[in-house]
């Protein structure tokens, strides 16, 4: 053979590559006998895909230690990575777990190859072990659980293995599985958490994200653990993964690996489900952490139901989440503080190590679970710009909150079976969401379970938060003492003093809210002031908690009707809610409502109606059109409609409210009672006195069937019924109810409050009707002082006071004074209610009566004509009856007997059916006592 022939022979296909490979093999063969980092290299133990493992022993002879030295004969490290390498080495050498082969040292040979000095583990690789021992599926799972616990331990130390495969797991003679090469992949490939280009891992066992060069996190280890288990169970993984084009196709189409039909037939279904969940191509769809996988594998072993389930149809719904909705959604669940945290973590989560870094294992899982919820409901969709505008169908229309609740439940079921910390957090979230949706029993049940878990876990912060939410739910339920006691328990908790300031503020706001409900406005303001001072310092701008505090602060002024201060706070709360959580946040309902109340109190009924309507829209949006909150706002709107004289609409609206309440609750409650009472007012406005009576009675009857949320409600019910009874002439019953109301109000309100004054005024009206002028005068003076003070800036609110004062003057025959007062009353009423409103007409009638009593027939006729719109009212409306009676009297005084008799006949039938107890009216009708009883 010539030189040339030999050269031609050498120039054969693939020979260049072969030379390279041979050279390295030979180089490695020269290693035994050399000393690496204090260890002498001994015989070759194994050749791996990329590395050679030698036996080694210490050279200093201080103590005997046999080690395994792994040499990775590849290109050298870049010097840039050296420092990083040292750091990683230190971290890895601190991993101490019975199922992890310990790393003693690492370094570089003079050739630039990396070497690792590791605990020498004698045994067989795990796949061989399983085969030789003929392990059952259960046995394989148990063995894998050892490895999984090692991986989980490492994840808590921020180390992802990245290269879990059979050859990296050795089972010793006593059946202990040891995972080799922890973090080596990263050690060799730098700090960025990616390990693909450079191809250190085995393609057969690489996770899809590794193959695709995507960021690698804990999910990759989940995948590889799943694949390892599959191998142990006897799957021919190589054939599953081949041929290469099909692997590429699978990845490109995000098709997940599935268990081969042959193996499938021999495995329990649950185990297949677990495997396939771990092996999903999309990392986000796998088990969120190794602990979850462990939990399911243990459940499988112990016969409990597993968490893995095929993905449900809910995902479709997320397509329809709009921007605003999403903002409201996040805000809605931000009452659960952990959500706020998890939003922040969403971006970070792609780097799973950072999550692992920030939290212990359980919280990491919880965060992951939470992040899934948030991701799926809004976050990704918004960021990708995939959704905008309105939902296309009714799936989550109006009910984003319910959607969150359902999702939380699903996550709870799917991902968390046993792990108590995450479970506690999710139960807490469910409980608070339940409460927002007014599902109070469920809320308490969830919160109570969450609290027990928190106590077991000794998580005092969580426990405190749960306590506050329990108090909130109890308060919603009307159990004020229970709520107050619960909050007191939170304040008394040993950990409270050192708790997070935000948590302390939350507690203050809650206690403030309860104080408002209990009528202690001063105490409430004190708590709220403290909380607001703390919360306003928040650098990120207003939070919903701050907005809550403003809102409750508004209540401390609005409930006792100190409107100006109330409006200031209410407007602040609207602003804060909007800035913190967007313009459709559910908390805005009560804020708008509060602003509406301030308009209502100012007699600005159009504005009030507009605000209440906004509040109703927020409620419709968040809670649905048949929710309790929507009904409450409709109640308010009806009230404004009454102010505007739109009585029919008002009654209709009350009817709708009542329908909603009746559908919502199987037991009577205060909202229903108040609605009936209010509908009574509207019906009385329409002159439907009998229906009104029924409504009032029904309201009060209902109020006796429930333990009232607050005595304020009863005060209102008694006041309304009392006034109605007085109108009907049932003075005894009327007075009784009014006194009852007065008593209830006095126990809650400031003695000077206008609310008390109004009830006093009603009592004065009753006394006037009963002819007890002295008592009426005394009551009017008392009420007058309070009202003049309260309404110094709003004199038009004094119309009713002037009316009563005018009637008193008339009764005293002080006609000049009566005329002055009643003129004032007329102006005030017209300003407050508008010209045609029955309440505006009434002073004119009183002026007519004054003129008539004086014998000024012309003036009387003139006033009667001016109040002619009263003739449009229903025949039974009190103002109509008053008008007719005055008309009758003018006819009589004009001597028109015939017409007077006809008018009297008509009136009699009305009075006999509706006002049979109105002795004052009946006396006028009968012509008795025309002059001495000069009032109407």
């Amino acid at each position, binding site marked *: 053979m010539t*030189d*040339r022939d030999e*050269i*031609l022979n*050498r*120039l*054969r*296909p*693939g*020979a*260049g*590559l*072969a*030379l*390279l*490979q*041979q*050279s*390295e*093999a*030979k*180089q*490695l*063969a*020269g290693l035994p*006998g*050399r*000393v690496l980092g204090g260890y002498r290299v001994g015989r070759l133990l194994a*050749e*791996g*895909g*990329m590395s050679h493992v030698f036996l080694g022993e210490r050279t200093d002879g201080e103590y005997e230690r046999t080690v395994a030295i792994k040499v990775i*004969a*590849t*290109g050298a490290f*870049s010097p840039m990575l050296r420092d990083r390498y040292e750091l990683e080495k230190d971290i890895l050498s601190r991993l101490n777990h019975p199922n992890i082969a310990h790393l003693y040292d690492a370094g570089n040979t*003079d*050739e630039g190859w990396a070497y690792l000095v590791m605990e020498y583990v004698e045994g067989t690789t795990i796949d061989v072990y399983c085969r030789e021992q003929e392990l059952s599926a259960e046995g394989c799972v148990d063995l894998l659980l050892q490895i999984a616990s090692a991986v989980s331990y490492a994840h808590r130390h921020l180390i992802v293995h990245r290269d879990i495969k059979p050859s990296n797991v050795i089972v010793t003679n006593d059946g202990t599985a040891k995972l080799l090469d922890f973090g080596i992949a990263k050690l060799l490939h730098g700090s*960025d958490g*990616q390990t*693909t*280009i*450079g*191809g*250190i891992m085995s*393609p057969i066992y690489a996770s899809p994200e590794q*193959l*695709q*060069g*995507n*960021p690698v996190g804990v999910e990759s280890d989940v995948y590889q653990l799943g694949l390892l288990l599959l191998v142990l169970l006897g799957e021919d993984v190589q054939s599953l993964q081949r041929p*290469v084009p099909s*692997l*590429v196709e699978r*990845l*490109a189409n995000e098709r997940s690996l599935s268990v081969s039909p042959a193996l499938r037939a021999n495995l329990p279904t649950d185990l297949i489900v677990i495997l396939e969940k771990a092996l999903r191509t999309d990392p986000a769809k796998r088990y969120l952490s190794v602990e979850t996988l462990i939990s399911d594998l243990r459940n499988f072993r112990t016969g409990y139901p597993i968490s893995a389930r095929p993905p449900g149809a809910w995902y479709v719904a997320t397509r329809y989440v709009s921007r605003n909705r999403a903002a409201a959604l996040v805000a809605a669940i931000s009452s659960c503080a952990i959500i706020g945290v998890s939003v922040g973590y969403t*971006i970070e989560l*792609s780097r799973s190590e950072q999550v692992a870094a920030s939290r212990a294992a359980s919280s990491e899982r919880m965060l992951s679970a939470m992040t899934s919820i948030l991701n799926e409901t809004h976050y990704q969709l918004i*960021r*990708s710009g995939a959704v905008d505008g309105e939902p296309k169908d009714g799936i989550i229309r109006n009910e984003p909150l319910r959607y969150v609740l359902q999702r939380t439940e699903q996550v709870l079921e799917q991902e968390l079976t046993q792990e108590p910390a995450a479970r506690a957090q999710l139960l807490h979230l469910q409980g608070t969401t339940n409460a927002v949706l007014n599902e109070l029993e469920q809320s308490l049940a969830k919160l109570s379970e969450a609290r027990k878990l928190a106590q077991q876990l000794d998580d005092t912060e969580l426990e405190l938060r749960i306590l506050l939410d329990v108090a909130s739910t109890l308060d919603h339920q009307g159990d004020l003492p229970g709520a107050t006691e619960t909050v007191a328990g939170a304040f008394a908790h040993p950990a409270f003093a050192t708790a997070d300031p935000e948590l302390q503020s939350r507690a203050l706001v809650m206690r403030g809210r309860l104080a408002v409900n209990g009528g202690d406005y001063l105490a409430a303001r004190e708590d709220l002031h403290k909380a607001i001072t703390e919360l306003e310092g928040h650098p990120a701008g207003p939070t919903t908690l701050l907005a809550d505090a403003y809102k409750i602060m508004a209540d401390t002024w609005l409930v006792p009707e100190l409107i100006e201060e109330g409006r200031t706070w209410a407007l602040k709360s609207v602003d804060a809610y909007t800035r913190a959580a967007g313009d459709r946040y559910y908390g805005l309902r009560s804020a708008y409502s509060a602003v509406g109340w301030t308009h209502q109190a100012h007699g600005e009924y159009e504005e009030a109606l507009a605000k209440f309507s906004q509040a109703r829209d927020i409620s419709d949006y968040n809670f649905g059109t048949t929710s309790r909150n929507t009904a409450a706002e409709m109640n308010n709107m009806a009230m404004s409609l009454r102010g505007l004289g739109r009585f029919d609409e008002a009654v209709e609206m009350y009817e709708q409210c009542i329908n909603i309440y009746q559908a919502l609750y199987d037991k009577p409650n205060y909202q229903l009672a108040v609605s009936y009472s209010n509908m009574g007012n509207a019906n009385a406005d329409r002159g439907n006195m009998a229906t009104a009576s029924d409504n009032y009675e029904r309201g009060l009857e209902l109020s006796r069937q429930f333990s009232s949320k607050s005595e304020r409600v009863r005060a209102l019910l008694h006041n309304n019924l009392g006034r109605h009874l007085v109108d009907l002439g049932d003075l005894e019953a009327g007075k009784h109810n009014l006194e009852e109301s007065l008593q209830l109000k006095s126990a809650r309100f400031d003695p000077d409050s206008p609310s008390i004054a109004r009830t006093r005024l009603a009592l004065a009206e009753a006394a006037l009707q009963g002819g007890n002028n002295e008592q009426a005068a005394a009551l009017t003076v008392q009420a007058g002082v309070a009202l003049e003070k309260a309404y110094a800036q709003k004199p038009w609110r004094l119309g009713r006071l002037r009316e009563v004062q005018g009637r008193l003057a008339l009764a005293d025959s002080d006609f000049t004074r009566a005329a002055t007062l009643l003129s004032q009353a007329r102006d005030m009423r017209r300003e407050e209610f508008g010209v045609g409103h029955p309440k505006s007409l009434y002073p004119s009638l009183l002026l007519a009566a004054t003129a008539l009593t004086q014998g000024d027939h012309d003036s009387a006729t003139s006033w009667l004509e001016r109040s002619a719109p009263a003739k449009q009212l229903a025949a039974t409306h009190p103002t109509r009856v008053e008008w007719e009676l005055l008309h009758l009297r003018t006819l009589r005084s004009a001597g028109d007997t015939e017409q007077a008799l006809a008018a009297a006949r008509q009136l009699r039938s009305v009075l006999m059916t509706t006002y049979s107890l109105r002795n004052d009216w009946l006396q006028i009708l009968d012509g008795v006592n025309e002059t001495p009883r000069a009032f109407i």
Partner: protein
Amino acid sequence: MRPHGLSSRMLANGREDQVKLSEVGELTMLLRAHDAGDGSAMEKIYNLIYTDLRMLASRQIDASRTLSATGLVHECYLRFRDAQTLEIKDREHFFRLAARVMRQVVIDNARARSADKRGAGVPDLPLDENLVADDPEWMFLLELEEALNKLDDERLIAVFECRYFAGMSETETASALDVSTRTVQREWQNARKRLADLLTE
């Protein structure tokens, strides 16, 4: 070495929400830049796949693992995140480049080994007969490299790189170079002959 440059550029563009790289991966972009005459693109591609091929080659020292040499380049190809989206033309381009990179890998190794032998070696490395015996191999490779550099026919060189250094089959080489199999056969034989001539001069 990893496609991070692109990632950080995207961050600078404010698209921090996009965790994944864009559909058009770095490799594609580099290949196109190279086509468009960007001289530095080639260097970047080299860097990108050099380490990978190097490690893949080492891994195959284990004779029991019988991934073919083609599998080696193919596997390297698969590792790039955009490999699946690479257009056919770019894919051929890639294999062509990979073969060239493999040549570099092999020659670099030969240089390093012969440098060891020439005194930059390791103090406690015992004189090893294997290494001495290896010596002619390294020398052969370095001479081959010299001879290759003397060839002026690009297609000839390309065919040789694909076949000899990357171990690609005739069909694969034909596909990578967009020529017929017959051409590959002819050029391969030509290259061998001309190189043998040069090496026996």
